């Protein structure tokens, strides 16, 4: 169930270039959100809300963490919000990742696709999974949450220009990872396309982004064609998580 809630900003800090981690307080969301779901944030008076994935939830402290990158006017304004202010939020939105206990999971994230994988990895870890993560960033200055992911298991960082970790694309690294049961990927469409091509023999899940109107499934803004092209899925309601191969990227 989606609710409209006020979420109090508990902390906000810059964790990488143009990238902010914000901790929000709300009992309902922290209790009910599952990995892969997102929040639909009202920023200022903007006509449309901004979808931002859930990076982590701590029901014991009633907190929800998000990580966002300044991408335009709305995220720029969001980065200027102050501790103590309330955000008008719809959530939790969409469907989470299918979770397979006691499996080995390969998490493949790119840029602002990395955040939801942290909550996913933490949850899978608690379910007895082995976690391997491959995270791609533009360059050294954009890397975030490396330690957090290291705490979950084996971790590779890849930067486009090689300024940190491996050099190149996440696909250059996942080539060498063979021992996993499921992969979970989130990032820009070209990356998801490459990843699902590369791993087309493997079982996996991808999380997709698209510009949204309502965020609840009513306006048909955020659709993605199904594999055979005969139909559309709504990312906000049927997704954002899909079985790899289910939709056409």
């Amino acid at each position, binding site marked *: 169930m*989606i609710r409209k809630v006020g979420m109090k900003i508990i902390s906000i800090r810059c964790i990488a270039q143009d990238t902010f981690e914000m901790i929000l307080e709300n009992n309902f969301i922290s209790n009910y959100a599952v990995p892969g779901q997102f929040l639909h944030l009202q920023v200022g008076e903007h006509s449309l*809300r901004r979808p931002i994935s859930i990076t982590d939830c701590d029901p014991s402290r009633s907190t929800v963490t998000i990580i966002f990158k300044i991408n335009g006017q709305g995220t720029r304004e969001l980065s200027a919000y102050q501790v103590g202010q309330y955000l008008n939020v719809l959530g939790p939105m969409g469907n989470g990742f299918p979770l397979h206990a006691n499996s080995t999971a390969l998490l493949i994230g790119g840029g602002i696709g990395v955040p939801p994988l942290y909550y996913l990895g933490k949850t899978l870890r608690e379910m007895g999974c082995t976690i391997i993560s491959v995270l791609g960033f533009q360059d050294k200055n954009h890397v975030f949450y490396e330690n957090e992911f290291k705490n979950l298991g084996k971790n590779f960082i890849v930067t486009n220009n090689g300024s940190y970790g491996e050099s190149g694309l996440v696909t250059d690294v996942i080539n060498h990872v063979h021992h996993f049961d499921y992969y979970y990927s989130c990032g820009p469409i070209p990356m998801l396309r490459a990843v699902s091509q590369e791993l087309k023999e493997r079982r996996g899940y991808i999380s997709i982004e698209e510009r949204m109107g309502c965020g*609840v499934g009513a*306006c*048909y803004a*955020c659709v993605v064609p199904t594999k055979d092209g005969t139909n559309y899925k709504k990312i906000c309601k049927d997704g954002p998580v899909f079985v790899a191969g289910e939709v056409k990227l």
Partner: protein
Amino acid sequence: MTRLTTELPGLALKNPIMPASGCFGFGREYSDFYDLGKLGAVIMKAATGNERLGNPTPRVAETSSGMLNAIGLQNPGVDKIIANEVPFLAQFDTKIIANIAGSTLEEYEYVAQAFNQTNKVHALELNISCPNVKEGGIQFGTDPTMASRVTEVVKKASNLPVYVKLSPNVTDIVSIAKAVEAAGADGLSMINTLTGMQIHLPSRRPIIANKTGGLSGPAIKPVAVRMIYEVSKQVQIPIIGMGGIKNAEDVLEFLLAGASAVAVGTANFQNPFVCSEIINELPQVLDKYGFNSVQDAIGKGIVA
């Protein structure tokens, strides 16, 4: 509650508030937020003869105090809507208005007939103004002769009252309104979106994959109020007003301009409770500005 009632052909509404077509799907999603029985009516998303998959994405873009959309009339087709969606909405104590679209006169006719055969739809809203359909949709809405032909066809095809939804992208909206009135329209719905475009600087491409899209939201409210005012002075049939409504004061502004009921579109995206909240606030707003009832406010803008 009787001070909120408003009466239009085929639509004895408990209040003048309805979600606008395309901004509320077929109501399911919003029924999780509040009881749809609270609404004066629900205007369903456009129905076409066959299923339509709509336009490629991105389909929406944000603009200053508004948004662009080019959904492209994605819908499962009238038969599936009648089978799966109308019965859902019919559970609620509200009126159902079916928004119908088409590329040809025959398609409009077919869709109108189909809705006519259900006894659950209370009125048709004739979408002759969707700027996102290439095959001719836009033509129907910008030419008085075409507009009256499609109105006549739909009137013949059904017994339901027909509200013709006008495009604001015209030089002379009054002449189109008069033409469809003469052709038998029971009411008007206005305004649809203004055609607009936004270019994404990094990619140098229009954000909307369809290039242009329809501009809605508070940005267009002054255009809507002006057109409703102009048309209401020149026709006898009632108007369902829309374009940028966000709150109960906006509703009153539309009533004063000459609308007999209103629809709320884009504002649902910011606040899914908006229609319900407006219905709650409307009595206080009527009080504040000295009106006994909705009926009392319609067309009461003083333009001396």
